[in-house]
C-alpha cells in the first residue's frame, strides 16, 4: 500500500531555514532520517505509516529549489540543534526515531545529545564510528564511478527495491536536473561525514537511554558488519539484529526480515 504523502515546511534556526518534511499516516509519531543519498520514501515508510504518523525531514540543502540552505548549517553540532528545533516546532512528543546510514549517525547523536527527545531508536547500518581494521570506503564510493555505487549499497543490486531507489528520469532535461540534485544532495550530507564520519560518537554513545534496535546486513560493503557490535556494546540494553544475505541498505536487500525485526521491536 502506498501512503498519501504530504509536504510540510517548517521554519527553524531563527527563520534562516525552511526545512521540508514529508509526512504520511496516522498514529504515534515516527521520525525517519535519510541516508547520504538524500531524501527518500522507501516502501518501509509506507508500512510504518499504516500504524504511525511518519515524519521524514529533508537534510538542509537537499530540498529541490533551496540548495543554499546548507550554508546556514556550519557544523554537525548545529545540524543536531536544527533537528532538535524542528522536532519541537512539529510539536512531537517523544517520537520514535529510525535512521539509515548517515541518518543513523544523526539519530544516534540526537539521542546522545537530548536523552529525553525520542521514545525509541532504530539504527539501520549507521555511520558514526571508525575502526582502523574495518575502514569504511565512503570517500571511494562518493568519488568513484556512479556505476559502482550499487556494489557498496546492495547485496542484490538487481532487486526491485534497489532499482527503484536508483531510478532516473528518461527525459534528458529532467535527467540533467535529477543528476545535479542527486550529486548536490551527497555534497550536502557529506559536509558532515567527510572524509571519515566520526565526530566522536563512540565516546558518548553510553548516554543513549531509550530502547534501541540495531539492524545490519552481514554483507554490508560500506559500513562493515563489525560495527554492529561496536554500537551494540556501547548502548546498554540494545538489541542487535544481523541479517544474512544482506548488504548496507537492509530494507532493500531483505525487506521482509528487516520489517519483522523493526516491527517486532516497535510493537514490543
Amino acid at each position: 500500500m502506498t501512503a498519501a504523502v504530504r509536504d510540510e515546511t517548517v521554519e527553524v534556526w531563527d527563520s534562516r531555514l525552511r526545512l521540508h518534511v514529508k509526512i504520511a499516516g496516522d498514529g504515534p509519531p515516527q521520525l525517519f532520517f535519510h541516508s547520504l543519498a538524500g531524501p527518500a520514501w522507501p516502501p518501509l515508510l509506507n508500512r510504518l505509516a499504516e500504524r504511525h504518523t511518519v515524519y521524514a525531514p529533508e537534510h538542509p540543502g537537499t530540498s529541490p529549489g533551496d540548495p543554499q540552505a546548507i550554508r546556514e548549517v556550519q557544523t554537525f553540532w548545529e545540524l543536531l540543534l536544527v533537528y532538535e528545533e524542528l522536532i519541537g516546532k512539529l510539536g512531537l512528543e517523544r517520537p520514535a526515531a529510525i535512521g539509515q546510514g548517515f541518518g543513523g549517525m544523526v539519530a544516534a547523536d540526537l539521542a546522545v545529545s537530548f536523552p529525553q527527545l525520542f521514545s525509541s531508536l532504530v539504527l539501520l547500518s549507521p555511520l558514526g564510528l571508525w575502526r582502523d581494521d574495518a575502514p569504511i570506503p565512503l570517500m571511494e564510493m562518493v568519488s568513484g564511478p556512479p556505476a559502482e555505487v550499487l556494489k557498496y549499497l546492495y547485496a542484490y543490486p538487481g532487486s526491485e527495491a534497489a532499482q527503484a531507489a536508483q531510478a532516473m528520469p528518461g527525459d534528458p532535461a529532467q535527467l540533467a536536473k535529477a543528476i545535479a540534485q542527486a550529486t548536490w544532495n551527497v555534497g550536502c550530507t557529506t559536509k558532515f561525514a567527510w572524509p571519515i564520519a566520526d565526530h566522536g560518537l563512540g565516546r558518548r554513545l553510553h548516554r543513549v537511554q531509550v530502547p534501541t534496535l540495531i539492524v545490519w546486513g552481514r554483507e554490508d560493503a560500506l559500513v562493515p558488519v563489525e560495527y554492529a557490535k561496536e554500537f551494540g556494546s556501547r548502548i546498554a540494553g540494545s538489541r542487535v539484529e544481523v541479517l544474512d544475505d544482506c548488504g548496507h541498505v537492509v530494507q532493500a536487500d531483505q525487506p521482509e526480515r528487516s520489517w519483522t525485526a523493526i516491527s517486532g521491536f516497535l510493537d514490543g
Partner: protein
Amino acid sequence: MKVSLFEQVPYRYMPEGFENQHNSVVTAPYQIVEPARMTESLFSAYAELMHGARAGFDGICVTEHSQSSYDISPNPTLLASAVACATRAEQLDVAITVLGRSLGKTREPLKIAEEYALLDGVSGGRLIAGFPVGLSYDANLNASLPAIETRERYREHRELILKAWSEPRPFPWNGRFEKYGQVNIWPRPVQQPHPPIWIPGTGSPGTLRDILAHDYVFVYLSWDGPKLTGRQVFDRYWELADELGRDRNPYRLAFLQVVAVSETDERAEREYARHLEAHYRSGLGAIPHTAMAVPGYAEPAAIEGMLRSAGPAGMLSRMKTATYSEIVDSQVAIVGSPATVADQIEAFVREFRIGNLLVMLQNGSMPRDLTEKNISLFAGEVLPRLRPIWDAEGWENHWWPRAAEAVPEAAGGAA
C-alpha cells in the same frame, strides 16, 4: 605581450599503458618509480626553468598538485624560490608566477601569505601571486576537505591573505575556518599593497565576474585546446568586462598553450608526437572524471548546465586515448616549425585578446635535451614575433611586477 615559460613536474618514465590500469592522481601507485629517475625528473624541471629564464622568457610559471604523477609539485613556492634566487644571482629579471598555492585546499592560509611575501622579497619584487581554488581531487580527496566548503574556504583565505599583507598593525582574525589572535606576518610583500594577482579558472561566469570586479587577471589553462572551448570562455569574459565597466586591456587575460617547436613541421612531429600522446594519456587522461568534481564542489546549476550543454566537448574528456592528430587538430598542442607555431599562436592571441601567454614546453616523457631545444627555439624564433603584438594598441600591463619590467636580452637559440 608577455610570454612566460610554464612548467609542470611530471615523472618522466611512466610505464607504457599505465592509464589502462591506474589513475595518475590520489591512488597512483608509487611502486612504479625508480628513485634515480625521480631525482632526475625533479631536477630537470628546475634546470629547464633556468634555461628558459636565460633564453629570454619574460617569466616562469609553476603550479601545485599533491599526490600526482603528472605534476610532482606539492608546494610550488619551493620550486619558485630556487628559481627566484638563481635568476637574481644571474641578473635575469624574470617574473616569478606561482599559479599557485591552492586557497581552497590549504589548512594553513597564513603560511601561503608568508611564503609569497618571502618569495616577493628574495626575488626583489618579481612575484605574480596566483590564487587558485584548487582542483577537486586535490582539495577534496588529497586534502580531504568537504567539497561543499571548498569555495567558502577559498574566499575566506583570500581575504585573510590580502589583509595580512597590507594591514600595518597586528590584528585578530575570527573567521569561520581560521582563528588567529595576532596576525602580524614577516616579511610583507615588497610590492604593496600586494603583488599582481592572477586567478586560474575554468571560466564559470561567477569566477569571471569575481576576477573582473577585483581587477585581477583571469588565467585560462586550456587543456581542451583554444579551438574547442576558447571562443565561449573568452567571449564571455570580454562581454562581462564591458558589463562591469572594465576596459578590454588584453593584459587582463592570460592563457596557457602547449607548444612543441622544431626546425620543420615534419621533424617536430617525429620528435614530439610520442611524448605528447604519452603525456596526455598517462597524465590528464588518467584522472578519473569523478575526481574532478566530488559531490558538493560544483553548484547544482553548474552541473545541470554542464550536462545539458550542447556546445562542443573539449578534448579533456578524451585524453585517455588521445592520438597525435587529435592533439594537433584541436590545438591542444601546437606543433611545428617556428613559422607554423608563431602563425597559429598569433592568430588566436589576436582573436581572443590575450596579453599574457604561458607556454608549456615540457610534456610527460620529454627528456631534458629535447625540452631545452624546444625552449631555445621558441625563445629565439617564436617569442620575438609575439612580443610586439599589442604594442600598437598602447595598453599598459598593470598586472606585471615592475621589477620584472625590463625586457630581457634574448639569448636566442644558443642559450
